């Protein structure tokens, strides 16, 4: 169908986007790779102008042998996995709920998507101070009201708390996409199944869920991309303490707090590798659904 002329036109039209993104990827990537092989301690007077000393794979070795490395990979995967499970599961439930006939559907929908409009910094601040504070937080008041000892959320249940905050932010996104998908479901098919006496769970399992699989794929893919790099939520709530140090937070500590650019850059390269492993993994498992 496509002519030669339209092929070259197509290439030309794709060029700006491709070139821009290639630049955006390559410039920092090459600099990061370069730094990762050098001793770059700006606080000790190292600078590009004075020339950086080549140290080979020393930074790479140091970064992985640090006692924080494997826990941080684990924490990253737990947070990403936890948020994905919660948002997808609750998202499906909410999407089905919002698809039911009811009064004031528009208003409810607004309530449900509202958290998506809140900046991560604001949501972390609000949750940390006004809800999870063990003395003045609202949750502490509720616990006390029922005669229970308030939970010290961000220290004693740090990972679940963090997963909860992030899930709250991303649940609307998952719900929206899943809702759009559910609305496109052929209701006649469902009604026919209902007539045949198929129980609710069976209908859900054999008709609704397969129909949603593509939307779930999309939700998982996009959220993973964003979740792998969450930063503000951790910075504001725990500052990386209590086992909430993700790989990107560890890199932040190396680069900004310790001012060791070489070491942090090596960590950056590891993070890119991890992200790609996760991406390939995702593609293998769910890529079939994405006949892009």
């Amino acid at each position, binding site marked *: 169908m496509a002519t030669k002329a339209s092929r070259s036109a197509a290439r030309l039209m794709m060029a700006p986007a491709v070139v821009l993104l290639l630049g955006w990827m390559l410039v920092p990537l090459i600099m990061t790779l370069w730094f990762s092989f050098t001793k770059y301690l700006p606080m000790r007077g190292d600078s590009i102008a004075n020339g950086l000393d080549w140290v080979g794979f020393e930074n790479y070795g140091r970064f992985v042998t640090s006692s924080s490395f494997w826990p941080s990979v684990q924490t990253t995967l737990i947070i990403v996995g936890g948020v994905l499970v919660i948002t997808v599961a609750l998202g499906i439930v909410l999407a089905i709920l919002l698809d039911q006939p009811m009064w004031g559907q528009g208003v409810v929908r607004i309530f449900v998507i509202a958290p998506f409009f809140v900046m991560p910094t604001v949501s972390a601040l609000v949750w940390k101070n006004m809800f999870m504070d063990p003395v003045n937080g609202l949750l502490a008041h509720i616990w006390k009201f029922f005669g229970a000892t308030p939970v010290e959320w961000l*220290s*004693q249940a740090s990972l679940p708390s963090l997963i909860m905050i992030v899930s709250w932010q991303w649940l609307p996104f998952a719900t929206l996409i899943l809702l759009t998908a559910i609305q496109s479901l052929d209701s006649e098919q469902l009604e026919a199944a209902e007539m045949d006496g198929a129980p609710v769970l069976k209908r859900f399992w054999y008709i609704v869920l397969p129909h949603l699989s593509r939307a779930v794929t999309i939700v998982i893919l996009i959220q993973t991309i964003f979740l792998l790099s969450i930063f503000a939520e951790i910075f504001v709530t725990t500052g990386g303490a*209590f086992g909430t140090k993700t790989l990107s937070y560890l890199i932040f500590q190396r680069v900004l707090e310790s001012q060791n650019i070489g070491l942090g850059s090596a960590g950056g390269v590891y993070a890119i590798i991890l992200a790609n492993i996760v991406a390939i993994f995702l593609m293998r498992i769910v890529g079939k659904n994405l006949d892009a």
Partner: protein
Amino acid sequence: MYLKNALHAATAISLIATYSAYADTITIATVNNGDMIRMQGLTDDFTAKTGHNVEWVTLEENVLRQRVTTDISTKGGAFDIMTIGMYETPIWGANGWLVPLDNLSAEYDVDDILPAMRNGLSNDGTLYAAPFYGESSMVMYRTDLMEKAGLEMPKAPTWDFIRQAAAAMTDRDNEINGICLRGKAGWGEGGAFITVTANSFGARWFDEGWNAQFDQPEWANALNFFVGMMAESGPPGYATNGFNENLSLFQQGKCGMWIDATVAASFVTNPNDSTVADKVGFALAPDTGLGKRANWLWAWALAIPAGSQKVDAAVQFIEWATSKGYIELVASKEGWANVPPGARTSLYENPEYQKVPFAQMTLDSINAADPTNPTVKPVPYVGIQFVAIPEFAGIATEVSQEFSAVYAGQQTVEEALAKAQALTNDAMEAAGYR
């Protein structure tokens, strides 16, 4: 005609040019503490006096540190004045990143700056930042609760007395915690507090050969004492409490004692914010009789990054904001209790200021701190609650995260100290000390 217009335009441009050379706009990065916000509100006075305008970048402390450190180490030049502390100043000054403040005017009277502050903000005798306010740490306690407990606070208490008094003041049913202290991770938060506590127990960060000392009994003693006392008398969730969390607890009347920055004295005695304003007493930070008290020394100071294009205007601003005149300006608008403390000798000689209840104790606390001789045993470093080497912030933040995990009950003191020992030695090796 055309020529004439062009001439007009040229004159206009040159006029603007001369004017702008005279009236600069400087960009200042500062922390969102109350005294700085007050300074922001008084900017008009500076503009009226010098013609220069100011653009403020006010950020929360952690964000500010991250922001100015990136900018100065890359020579970004985004700011003309940075608000930095006693930790950064000597390191950055030694790197040649800051403009030396050696040509301050006579009426500024640089010799009036408290010697402790001036030394802490200098490198090799050159001043690199002017103190906006300075602080040490001291005990703030509730006089009414102390009386109720049947105890009397000495002027210079010991840790044992503090622990005993804390236990006596604690009243869990009424949500009164005997003592509130920092447990929050971060080298400038809980890290600073546990370091000064350890100092008073005879511990030190490094021996003379830069070997980490967390495997020594002094650290275990200090940490066990701290954890034990907080379990008996501390507030719930203290592992996440920093300066500000404790301040609000104290202001709400939920703490019997609080050992923290001397600047907090003006907040806890301010009836607008504090429910216990008229019931607060002060004492020196505690010791264990080994000769070192658990008090630190800190200053928030204004410095000019070496790349700034507007050094003249920046110097003028620093001379304005850290002058005697500025202190008088604040006193005339907000009262003497609210002037920025701890920077100038003349302030403590002022009879008006001597009437402020916490003035003398603040000065005594500052004078009790000695950054060049911070510990019982000898150390190769300068600094009390920090070690003035570039690697310290990163190391101490990780160490304090291990300690906070102890406070939250997630690991034992021994585990945390072993981890701290290992990670500190690793980092020091990476930096080439060992």
